[in-house]
């Protein structure tokens, strides 16, 4: 029975995300094109760092397990309604691999300066076209944000 459900889900998602995978990669090429033809005013936007208060986030090669545990707790309350830990999309994209796709600064800025980045970041805008729901700002403290980043790293296999 579970299989049926899984199949059904996959069918649903491939339908729901029709061209989702494609548009993701297309999105990045379009993005670089967009970068070159930037309109004045958005010139200052750094797609690597995103926009927000985090300019340099120090991370170690090793995981801070305590921090990750705290991050998981906050995520359970404020994030998990919409994000799965796998690469499967729920309301928002699955979290697997996110720390490989984005810099720590980008992730933390997006979590705390959500609306501004939805309006400016080409990757976020491409994702919005797939998910159709603007990620809410969940009013995370700086500490919570860093803890969640650590949990995302753990989810991506950092030990």
């Amino acid at each position: 029975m579970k299989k049926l459900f899984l199949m059904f889900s996959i069918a649903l998602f491939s339908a729901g995300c029709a061209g989702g995978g494609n548009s993701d990669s297309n999105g990045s090429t379009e993005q670089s094109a967009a970068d070159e033809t930037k309109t004045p005013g958005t010139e200052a936007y750094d797609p690597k760092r995103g926009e927000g208060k985090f300019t340099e986030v120090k991370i170690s090669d090793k995981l801070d397990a305590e921090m990750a545990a705290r991050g998981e707790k906050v995520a359970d309350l404020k994030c998990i309604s919409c994000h799965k830990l796998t690469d499967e999309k729920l309301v928002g994209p699955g979290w697997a691999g996110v720390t490989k796709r984005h810099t720590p600064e980008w992730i933390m800025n997006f979590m705390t300066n959500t609306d501004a980045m939805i309006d400016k970041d080409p990757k976020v805008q491409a994702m919005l076209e797939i998910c159709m729901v603007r990620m809410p700002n969940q009013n995370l403290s700086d500490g919570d944000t860093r803890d969640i980043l650590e949990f995302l790293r753990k989810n991506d296999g950092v030990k």
Partner: protein
Amino acid sequence: MKRNLYILCSCAALLMLMNLSGCKPKNAGDATGGDAAGRVYVAPGKYDELYNFVSGGFSGQVSVYGIPSGRLLRVIPVFSVDPEKGWGFSEETKPMLNTSHGEIPWGDQHHLALSQTNGEIDGRWLFANENNTPRIARIDLKTFRTTEIIEIPNSAGNHSSPFITENTEYVVAGTRFSVPMDNEDGDVPIDSYKKNFKGTLSFVSVAPKEGEMKVAFQMVLPGMNFDLSHSGKGPSSGWFFFSCYNSEQAHTLLEVNASKRDKDYILAVNWKKAAEYVKQGKGKKVKANYAHNTFSEVTHSATSKMETETTLIDVKDFPDLVYMIPCPKSPHGCDVDPSGEYIVGSGKLAALIPVFSFSKIQNAIANKTYDGDYGGIPVLKYEAALYGEVKKPGLGPLHTEFDGKGNAYTTFFISSEIVKWNIKDLKVLDRQPTYYSPGHLSIPGGDTKKPYGKYLIAYNKITKDRFLPTGPELSQSAQLFDISGDKMKLLLDYPTIGEPHYAQMVPAELIAKNSQKIFRLDENKHPYVTMGEKNSKVVREGNKVHVYMTAMRSHFSPDNIEGVKVGDEVYFHVTNLEQDWDVPHGFGVKGNKNAELLIMPGETTTLKWVPEKAGIFPIYCTDFCSALHQEMQGYVRVSVKGSKVPISFSLGKNSEAAEEMLKK
């Protein structure tokens, strides 16, 4: 012939029309300045200059307008249920409407007072009275929500309320209807009014930090009707002034019988001294029964407690607390100027405005310049208390406020106008018609030590032809005037909710900067909170089913529930997991004899549902929350009594029961 008749009729109709418009008062368009439109235009996306809190009268609620645009920003539910917001319908808010008579769905809200520090508006709370079943509410201006309601014992018709002292030490409640005291046998002949009916002036203390209210003491006076009041300030600190009518002590046909005497009274009450007497234990503690309801922003829930005692001060036993000042004729407004020296009485059946002097009142008391007594209370000689009279100001003065530049503005109900006059020389400076019959008026800070001035709003009791007709029932109207110049200029007419009585106005920044955006999830101590979707569940306790549900754009968890039976009491405890501004979720259940929930970010709110028949019942989000709002829905399966369907719940997968069936 037919044609001639037609022409004749048309001519007659035309004449009648011309006649009609001829009868109408001169168009207010003449009175508005040429720049009126520009003065009230607030560009899209821009904020108004002032908040205007307006009593909702028989709607029982309080409305909030932006000034100068006159845009309605919000209706705050206070004394009446509001299904739109779940007020009085959610389990958490029901206790707010509890009284000694049980839960009451409606109230009559007349007057408002913004909290003050040193006689100036401090932007913390808004107090609102309830006239019918005497109560006072406190609204928290961080959340624009009613946070406390206290019932007033030994009172009926809480009209002379909720006026406050300079530092919000007390909010007062004077009875409009005198009645026998609660602890006495009230089953008495109505015509024993003079013997058995008493009026009370209650002083409700307000805790300096948290604002919690307490009926501190109640002054007992002879039976009469108290109308309005205002606190002294500056030199008159420590005193409160109340207007009264029906000093004739009539109990029937008051229209005639309470309008016989040339003068009624304004009472000067030394509340500081009364508070001292109470502190010394001189008050009489009596049994009472009244509700005290408080709403906690931590548990997101209200509790109602019945208080059992009150302290009475019988004024006839304390001759130095209250003095009566004769005032023509059935006074309504009782207003103290910003300096605290002048007290303006507005005799609603009078053709003059008396202005009393606080220093002269003090001299008259010191020298015992009395004119007899009223039920044992000394009556001061009119001339001994009087500063002077504004002669021929208009007909039917009701209420006065001040601009802080030495001018007073009084509404005239009978002659439908606002009159500006100078406090010192008592000369009339300007008059402008209103449309029609104003009751109260409001100037920003106009009853405080420091009026902001600039605008004046008249609240009219009669609208008639001012707006497009809407059948027999019309909205009442507010009229905004510019008072920055020598002459008042009419700027704008706009409709109001309910019947506006008193109002308060304040520069926006004082309130806006404190406005709360969300409730923090980590501070949510609701006993049925669901901290995160993983904790959502359904629990059966006998015939009670508790649904621990979360809401997040754009789904509920769980959204499929089975195992509910006919006759169960189902409680949906919905926690909104959003932590962003302006993302409430709504919640409705098909066939529920109840309202909806409107759950703010971080809040938990509970909707009760007792299903009466078996079947499938959809649930859904009622507040458009996202592009996938229409997908924010679920189903509850209701089975017959005695059914074996177990409680199950799920999100994003089939229920266990469904899995079982599919296996077969």
